[in-house]
């Protein structure tokens, strides 16, 4: 009796910590994105609240909480209400098996599932449901177009994304995230030629997966106003924001874990290494976003099916050949 209760309590504590981390991380990333974009554009960005506007995201979140929550007439209520949760909850669930490293010998991973990668692949695909439900439920043509684009895009880019992950799994010989990190103790995967290709594919497909420029066609501001979340206001809109930035963190964390050696690194504590790698990749994605124009929808699909998928298949075959040799 004691042990299940204890496990439950521990899991609750872990859950609270993870949720707290997600909220803080998303808020930090929003502020960070505004500062990064500002400095790319030779300006300062938020300056008035806290040190260099550090409390800007706090103000934004409180304000969004206070905003009126408009439900337009004519929405499909069920999907309208559920969509923001579908956009956030799967991303949060991914955190179960992301290895943050260890502090004083305690492994900072909620549960090291032995099918970790499979679990993550399954969950990240659910996010598209949220976007599609938002697009369908809003009863707005822009939202519908955004949702349709998103569905097509994420389904297409899932394939190269998964193939790139499989390459890493083949090299590590395990589906468990911790094992994959341990397999890179000697040399990070990214330093092997065909893993470097897999890494590049992963970053490209990952950028598309989280709908960031140049693949941000589902929300394409200059075409679809705000895409699938055009009709959302207040906290529901904030949920989409939270989902987007957490998703970005997850993709970067996965890339760091699968290809950049996860939390392993010299001198600094593992947690710090993990965060440096992850936020570094996030910053890279921001840099791309504020530099490149957007691709067109047919170019996007063509790139996925004609370039990215064949290349990742070829890469997989080569990786298999290297392993068999």
């Amino acid at each position: 009796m004691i042990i299940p209760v204890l496990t439950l309590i521990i899991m609750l504590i872990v859950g609270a910590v993870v949720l707290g981390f997600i909220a803080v991380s998303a808020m930090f990333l929003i502020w960070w994105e505004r500062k990064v974009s500002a400095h790319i554009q030779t300006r300062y960005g938020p300056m008035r609240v806290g040190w260099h506007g550090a409390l800007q995201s706090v103000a934004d979140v409180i304000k969004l909480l206070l905003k009126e929550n408009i439900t337009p007439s004519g929405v499909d209520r069920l999907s309208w209400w559920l969509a923001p949760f579908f956009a956030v909850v799967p991303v949060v669930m991914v955190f179960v098996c992301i290895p943050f490293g260890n502090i004083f010998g305690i492994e900072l991973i909620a549960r090291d599932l032995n099918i970790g990668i499979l679990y993550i692949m399954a969950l990240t695909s659910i996010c598209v449901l949220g976007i599609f439900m938002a697009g369908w439920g809003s009863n707005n043509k822009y939202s519908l177009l955004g949702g349709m684009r998103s569905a097509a895009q994420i389904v297409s880019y899932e394939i190269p994304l998964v193939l790139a992950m499989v390459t890493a799994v083949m090299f590590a010989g395990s589906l468990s995230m911790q094992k994959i990190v341990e397999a890179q103790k000697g040399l990070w995967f990214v330093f092997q030629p065909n893993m470097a290709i897999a890494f590049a594919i992963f970053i490209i497909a990952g950028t598309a997966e989280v709908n960031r420029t140049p693949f941000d066609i589902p929300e394409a501001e200059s075409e679809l106003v705000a895409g699938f979340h055009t009709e959302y206001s207040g906290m529901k809109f904030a949920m989409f924001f939270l989902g987007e930035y957490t998703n970005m963190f997850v993709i970067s964390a996965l890339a760091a874990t699968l290809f950049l050696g996860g939390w392993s690194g010299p001198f600094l504590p593992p947690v710090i290494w993990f965060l440096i790698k992850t936020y570094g990749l996030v910053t890279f994605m921001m840099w791309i976003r504020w530099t490149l124009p957007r691709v067109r929808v047919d170019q996007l699909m063509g790139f996925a099916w004609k370039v990215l998928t064949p290349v990742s298949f070829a890469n997989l075959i080569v990786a298999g050949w290297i392993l068999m040799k």
Partner: protein
Amino acid sequence: MAVIERIPASGLIEKFPGGNLALTTSESVLKWSKASSLWPLTFGLACCAIEMIGTGASRFDIDRFGAGVFRASPRQCDVMIVAGTICVKMGDCMKRLYAQMPEPKYVIAMGNCAVSGGIFCRDTYSVVKGTEALGIPVDVLIPGCPPRPENLLFGIMKLQEKIRKEKRVKR
């Protein structure tokens, strides 16, 4: 006070210790958050829109005040900067946009045209004489044709001041 007198047993109700403090601080936090995160609607009508973009651009940088997130959808913004001449044909659209914005919402009338019709006020058959003539309440009026970016920033600061001085947090 007046409300409390009307409640017969008001004297019997024990006050929550420190409640006043908690209420005022929370209110001021709410007001602070509203004031420092004014997201404008991407909405340029005429000439003033160029100065509005100029205010958002590198040199003046409206984002320093937390007001740089120009949202294209009226559902997600807090302040409508009416930048330019409002014409009869545009009037209905403006009213609809204002109605689509969620509360609490604010309006800045930027430029003489949005204030009163400006130089297009007379001898014209198609210009609405200011935002208020449409029935949209205006919080801050910024004169100028067009106002300089500094003026718009000053208008934003005035609006922040106004929000901080609000009697009660609007819903």
